[in-house]
């Protein structure tokens, strides 16, 4: 039966009957409104159809072509982080009521999603030490761009200052977003220890800017001096935007909001969202209350129903594109709802002590790896500043070659910085998490020593 497909309920007979009932004689007539010459004559040039059994085999084959070392022996970071996802997270995500539902436009039958988002907003506020958070954004880089735009809406200066320690893909994305809306993007430099330089920031701020952007921990793993930078920004009437892409660090690091940051934005993939070769991930945006009506994206708020029951609704939608059109605070519509739910369940599962212990473990393991590598003669550490779970090691030779040679030993040693900075050919960005047992860290250090 050509037409009967497992995903299409209608049988041939039903199809024919409905066609008649709808007043058509032939299926083609359904498309009579498409000019004849635009009607596709041939068949589409796509593979398939495949029975599910063959489909699974096909995709298993594809997945198997990704030849990567055992996760325990991977040391990649650089904007995406390897963390263990407790089994209940995915189990709960697979509730069809969560993953197959739409944006909760109809609150009476969407309280599950709405309450979960309200909780997500609160959890992000607690982690970042800020007043408000939205319901999620696409991912870290575009979220940062939106944050810069938001800061400039509250305090129009048409200028932002980026630390040169920002993830290169974030910097590039910001430039793409801001290219044509008359905002100037300027970068400021760093100190010898690898952290953003408050002096240079202050100088740059003197010319006026709506925001000062610093990544924390920065792209090279260094923990930043948020308080100092916040002071400089405040002084110049600019908003300090702290960009983060390793949320687990917030289990150990002081909440940037408590250190003077006005906006904390970035990537929350680390909160249990699968690596999935780069997406879907989870942009987040938290800010001081003053930004409330300038926020991009969806916001969920508390409300009462006609019987006085507490419930939750999408609110402040006059900020959004479907109401404000070109004057909206952003063009975002579909966001990353399910990833926000992933992160919420993850955070709820780890809880306060779990999050703080996990962060301690990550730091301890990275510190151990660093110490082991420091014992290897001939290696250098161009960024001596304190770090969380990531740092740069300068090898004796090409880091790219090193990665390939260690791959043969079943180790994915890290990210060669040459990928972004051709002049840093010997530098390797190494990330160590709870996924890396001591034995593998030792193996990494030994093999690097043998290079």
């Amino acid at each position, binding site marked *: 039966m050509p037409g009967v497909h497992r995903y299409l309920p209608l049988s041939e007979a039903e199809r024919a009957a409905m066609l008649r009932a709808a007043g058509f004689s032939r299926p083609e007539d359904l*498309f009579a409104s498409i000019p004849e010459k635009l009607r596709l004559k041939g068949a589409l040039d796509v593979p398939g159809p495949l029975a599910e059994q063959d489909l699974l085999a096909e995709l298993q084959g594809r*997945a198997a072509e*990704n030849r990567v070392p055992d996760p325990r022996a991977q040391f990649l970071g650089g904007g995406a982080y390897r963390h263990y996802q407790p089994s209940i997270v995915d189990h709960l995500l697979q509730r069809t009521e969560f993953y197959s539902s*739409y944006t909760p436009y109809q609150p009476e039958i969407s309280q599950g999603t709405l309450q979960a988002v309200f909780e997500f907003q609160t959890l992000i506020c607690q982690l970042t030490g800020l007043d408000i958070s939205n319901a999620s954004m696409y991912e870290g880089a575009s979220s940062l761009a939106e944050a810069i735009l938001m800061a400039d809406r509250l305090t129009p200066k048409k200028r932002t200052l980026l630390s040169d320690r920002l993830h290169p893909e974030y910097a590039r994305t910001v430039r793409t977003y801001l290219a044509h809306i008359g905002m100037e993007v300027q970068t400021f430099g760093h100190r010898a220890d690898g952290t953003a330089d408050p002096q240079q920031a202050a100088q740059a701020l003197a010319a006026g800017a709506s925001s000062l952007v610093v990544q924390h921990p920065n792209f090279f793993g260094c923990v930043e001096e948020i308080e100092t930078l916040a002071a400089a920004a405040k002084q110049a009437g600019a908003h300090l935007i702290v960009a983060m892409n390793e949320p687990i660090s917030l289990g150990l690091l002081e909440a940037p909001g408590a250190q003077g940051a006005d906006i904390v934005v970035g990537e929350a993939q680390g909160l249990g969202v699968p690596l999935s070769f780069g*997406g879907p991930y989870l942009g987040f945006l938290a800010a001081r209350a003053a930004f409330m009506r300038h926020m991009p994206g969806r916001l969920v708020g508390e409300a009462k129903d006609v019987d006085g029951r507490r419930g939750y609704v999408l609110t402040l939608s006059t900020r959004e594109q479907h109401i404000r059109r070109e004057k909206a605070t952003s063009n975002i519509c579909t966001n990353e709802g399910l990833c926000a739910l992933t992160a919420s*369940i993850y955070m709820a599962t780890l809880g306060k002590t*779990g999050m703080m212990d996990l962060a301690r473990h990550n730091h301890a393991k990275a510190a151990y790896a660093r110490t082991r590598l420091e014992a290897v003669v001939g290696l250098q550490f161009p960024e001596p500043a304190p770090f969380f779970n990531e740092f740069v090691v300068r090898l004796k030779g090409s880091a790219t070659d090193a990665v390939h040679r260690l791959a043969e030993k079943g180790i994915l040693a890290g990210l060669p910085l040459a990928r972004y900075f051709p002049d840093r050919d010997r530098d390797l960005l190494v990330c160590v998490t709870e996924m890396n047992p001591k034995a593998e860290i030792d193996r990494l250090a030994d093999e690097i020593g043998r290079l």
Partner: protein
Amino acid sequence: METRNKRPPEGLLFEVSRPGRRGADLPPLDVPADGKHHLDRRFRRDDIEGFPELSEVDVVRHYTRLSRLNYAIDLGLYPLGSCTMKYNPKINEKVARLPGFADLHPQTPEEMAQGALRLMHSLERALAAVCGMDRFTLQPAAGAQGEQVGILMVRAYHQDKGNPRQVVLIPDSAHGTNPASAHLAGYKVEQIPSNARGCVDVEALRKRVAEDVAVLMLTNPNTLGVFEGEIETVARILHDRGALLYMDGANLNAFVGQARPGDMGVDVHHLNLHKTFSTPHGGGGPGAGPVGVKKILEPYLPAPVIERDGDTLRLRHDRPKSVGRIRSFHGNFGMFVRAWAFILAHGPDGLKRMSETAVLNANYLRKRLEKTWHLPYDEPSLHEVVFSDKNLEATGVRTLDVAKRLMDYGFHPPTIYFPLIVKGALMIEPTETESREELDLFVDALMAIDAEARQDPDLVKNAPHTTPIRRLDETTAARQPILRWMPDPKNT
């Protein structure tokens, strides 16, 4: 007699939290806890104030209970117009979770990620075939970001020719993301009126298109579910004056395998994998908004692009004319896996049959409803049909009331009050994965509600009656926004 279960509603995470509980245990720390790299006190926090403390059981129950408050596609028809709420095949969830995909780090060296790159490459080529375009970028995270990328490419194209131009034309029936995206690309937005048939007014367009117009963003089929029959003329008008045609492909489900944007004069368009290609909506996302372009725009595609190099696929970053990145990494890969699986499951005939069925279902609903419900635009429908509450004017029952009442009949309401050109719009898109009996049940419900509106309007105006929560006071919610939980001062 009682009607509601007496169990109190599930509290917030922070309310069900109890100090000292934990939901996860970490492996014992197998390295020294503290060494010379100890982090100075001033960097550290000693608490995450208010953060929940729950056992694994508490967490499972919390979210399981919350889930039961949601409607879902697996519970019945979800006829949100323009959202294409179709069945999400379970096998797609399974393959997206294969460790080879789910655990693949985006910074993995290309040589070790050939399977993922091949999948992306295959998907790009399949989408190009489906849409009749020359090239695709998979980078955009959703339709809106796809629009943004598309318009940025248009801008780069004009820029290359020496003048980026100033204006983006958008019909009044368009989705809000269109103007918002055009604005982000630095353009001035001008509305083009729809004609009596709900389609773009070609004469108005002809008058307006001049040297300052960069592009027209046309939704096709438009948000009334009507095919823009004059799209070729529209393209010619634009092209004659050096302007381009952008197509909002959110409604592509209407003609996959029947017609192709590329054959209609479209220069660039996005589509939504989370609509036409069934990646789950996830209660708001994630999605993916690939953008297809004709050759003329290829140089401007966001970097990186995937290219063959012998037997290996590589990510090319060196693209001098590229509009640049719009996000980090390679796009919403997990959605690519699902969409690719969806395409493979259907094959050429299946995809064609998919759109045919979607259109059949929409027209079947239309026929059964149009005698009772007001059809503001009596034009041939493709995948969706838009009714209004006009016939109920006398009763005082409004579209919103009808939507809420549908819940008492066990249905999710259609999209309401959109498109804006229809007063009190009820925008119904059944999709191809609905059975006849489900459609009939929905028709019966709308018929019954029409009768109720005439006999007992308050029953409808006070709906819903059977949902866990009833109508919420959204006005107060917006006037005094409570956007997060706060510890009750009484308890602290």
